[in-house]
């Protein structure tokens, strides 16, 4: 079937969007709608699945098939759907609380199984819908309603978690950089396997300014390292900087007389060790890496799952119900 030429508005549902004015979610919604229009996928073949939380209202605003499920379990619903309907384009929408706290078990297993699904983790480092408690990505010492003396929890690093769980496409984006976010969404869609995108998203009510260091255009140019496969790791507008490797750690250098781009590390998406190192830098003089941190090709779960069915039918033919009911030994009473 030929895919119609879609516009962004074809993916806008008739429901009123009810996020707080100024929320980072608006930008992400807009980029997803724009991106879906250009993916060459029939609109009816998109399935958007979420858990619980501010971000998880997302499916209601998408003119696609959508399922707003229960807290933390979106990857599990997506797994059952994708295993049985591999032709669908499945998108999981979740937040740091939904996915990394109550749903921690499901995301790690979805990643290791490598379903060909897309996972968008809206990370605002706070619980929004329950009105401002610290989350599993909140920094140590954070004062919130539930931590008046500061959080004592060590936060998760979502990129490290995804690397450890066997993710095959692991990327980071930021809500306000529309063009880059769209390219990450396209990259995830094109990847055969689980695309995991951590999206820094500002909660302007309960955790405003969490990502200010790289959210404004000027700050971003100074502090964000946009990763590109095969390109040197350099950034900065006023002062050009680069990352070099000293032993097994990164070091920030200014480019100029002592160092040039040629001295800097070249990004290799297939280098797991380098991805580990990149996942660890963030602030304290280091830039925040954005883009694809790691990528590998591995067979997808649903392919292997359906291949076993095909193989069984090939070998045994379509199931004969009468033979199944009879089983091994029968006897006749006359």
């Amino acid at each position: 079937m030929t895919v119609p030429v879609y516009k962004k508005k074809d993916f806008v549902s008739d429901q009123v969007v009810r996020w707080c004015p100024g929320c980072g979610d608006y930008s992400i919604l807009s980029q997803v709608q724009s991106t879906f229009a250009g993916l060459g996928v029939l609109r009816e073949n998109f399935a958007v699945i979420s858990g619980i939380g501010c971000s998880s209202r997302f499916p209601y605003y998408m003119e696609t098939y959508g399922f707003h499920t229960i807290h933390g379990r979106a990857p599990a619903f997506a797994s059952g759907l994708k295993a049985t309907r591999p032709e669908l384009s499945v998108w999981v929408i979740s937040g740091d609380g939904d996915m990394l706290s109550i749903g921690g078990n499901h995301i790690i297993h979805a990643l290791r199984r490598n379903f060909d699904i897309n996972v968008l983790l809206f990370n605002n480092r706070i619980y929004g819908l329950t009105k401002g408690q610290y989350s599993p990505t909140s920094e140590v010492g954070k004062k919130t309603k539930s931590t008046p003396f500061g959080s004592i929890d060590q936060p998760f690093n979502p990129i490290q978690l995804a690397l450890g769980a066997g993710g095959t496409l692991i990327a980071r984006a930021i809500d306000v950089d529309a063009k880059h976010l769209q390219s990450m969404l396209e990259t995830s869609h094109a990847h055969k396997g689980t695309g995991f995108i951590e999206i820094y998203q500002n909660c302007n009510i309960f955790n405003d300014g969490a990502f200010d260091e790289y959210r404004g255009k000027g700050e971003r140019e100074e502090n964000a390292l946009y990763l590109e496969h095969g390109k040197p790791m350099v950034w900065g507008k006023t002062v050009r900087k680069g990352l070099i490797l000293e032993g097994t750690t990164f070091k920030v250098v200014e480019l100029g007389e002592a160092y040039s781009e040629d001295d800097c590390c070249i990004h290799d998406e297939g280098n797991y060790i380098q991805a580990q190192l990149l996942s660890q830098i963030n602030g304290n003089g280091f830039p925040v890496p954005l883009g694809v941190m790691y990528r590998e090709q591995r067979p997808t779960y649903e392919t292997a799952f359906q291949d076993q069915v095909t193989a069984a039918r090939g070998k045994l033919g379509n199931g004969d119900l009468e033979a199944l009911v009879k089983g091994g030994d029968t006897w006749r009473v006359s």
Partner: protein
Amino acid sequence: MSTTARIEPGPNASLDSVVIRFAGDSGDGMQLIGNQFTRTSALAGNDLATLPDFPAEIRAPAGTRAGVSGFQLQFANHDIFTPGDIADVLVAMNPAALVANLGRLKDGGLIIVNNDKFASRDLKLANLEQSPLEDGTVENYRVVEVGITKLTKDTVEPLGLTTKEADRCKNFFALGMMYWLYSRNMGPTEDWVRSKFKGKYADANLAALRAGWSYAETVEIFAGQPYMVPRADDFDAGEYRNIMGNAALAVGLAAAATKADRPLFYGTYPITPASDILHALAPFKNYGVVTYQAEDEIAAVCAAIGASWGGSIGVTGTSGPGIALKAEAMGLANIVELPLIVVNVQRGGPSTGLPTKTEQSDLLQVMYGRNGDSPMPILAPKTPADCFEVAIEAVKIAFKYMTPVVIMSDGYIANGAEPWKLPDLDTIPEMKPTFAKAVEGEEFQAYSRNPETLARPWAIPGTPGLEHRVGGLEKQHLTGHVSYDPPNHQFMQELRRDKVNKIRQDIPATEIHGDDSGLCVLTWGSTYGAARTAVNGARKQGKKVGHVHLRWLNPLPADLGDVLAKYDRVLVPELNLGQLVKLIRAEYLIDAQSLSKVQGQPFTTNEILSRILEEV
């Protein structure tokens, strides 16, 4: 080796029914020979019922009472409903198995005991100071002592097995003796051994089996002639097989998938006693059945719902602790109104409870154990073979009413076996679901209703023009949009309740067995067999008693109130502290009485019969 034959000589006696209990260590292979005897008896045309009774530990400390694994079966020349209250014969492989099972052997019953296992260390493991064979413990029984360990070892010696390997064959020696004693054909077991074991291991087991037979025949320990239990002649004509509950459920699900022409997705997490459903379904891939071993119970049900959303038959199977974990997702299935089958193979609770023992104590959990009013259709098989029909019925109702359905099996049904008259597959209706399609010029309403069933349309992703959203937030009637409107919530709550009650139109009229006045014995699930036998027994004594058995627990049959009103008294035997009885009292305002048992064991016929005789 000593053989003490105190059995009375007799003719080649023909018996109506026999109850055998095999008991040994968890590693002695008692379940294996129990199943072999069952299969052989089934092939010989007996009616039968079985009760495996094993510990939760895979290999509890050898020789201890905690490690005793038992298998009881009754086989008969007539229609029977239970594995028997009390055994006629006990095969005991060690002192612990002997003393732990004496209470289940009738006075004067036959004991065949492996007396190679009565050294002082064996007695110590069983917490015994003296040998029960010598201290008078067994003087009221007919005891046949056989050195099974040594005889087996001598038998297989030429095959070059290690001592440990040789020891493992001793269950077949015991089985061979029992086959001789009850004149069974060893052919089916011999074929089975050849298919399951290779080379010298097959040879060794076969040698032990035949040696057991020959030993029983030549040593004349049983005083000459073996017994006979002729084939049951009151079976309906047809083709039969022997089947266990979990296997019947799996075959039923596969049959439903075939008749519905839809893939069946079984999402599950291993749990006793439900895991065998997964094992049975996993090879059925060419029947359109796929199995998914999820990361936990919650993921298992969520994946099943995801599959249902996509148009498959989503099924999840578990036991009580898993139901607790799935509760929130079951509530979601209720509000998004998607077909889903939840199989609960109940076990003893609360918490981890008694994983390998049976109970019926999750009825109120599945009935009410969710947040909000969340009505859940519930039906229960009554016997192992009945699981087949119940599985098909559950899928049919889930499709027809767009609803989750719970199947309440239990450990007794799951692991029990009985002869099953093979169904005429042509009589099982096709049940292809109808998926919604876009209609030109009409706006799709995801929560519109079929007036007959109140079902909403099943619009699966991939259908052009029907893009819509479902979820756990309350839905606006018809449109399915999120709605916080107060009257709409009440309307939808009542609608979901009414929809489940509509299932009554698919429930046949309630059958009364026996009298329709006097005492009504009202049962559900696996209590059927013992209650039916007890009611028959009471009626033989001239008592006015009827038996009403419920297949549907929610909704209750439309005519149940009128049926119960015919009786002076209602007695509800249940393997819980009184759950159905609460529902009955609340629903019909009658003074129904509870007969409760929570020992991890099914009712014996006598337990119910005694209570009936007290009541009438």
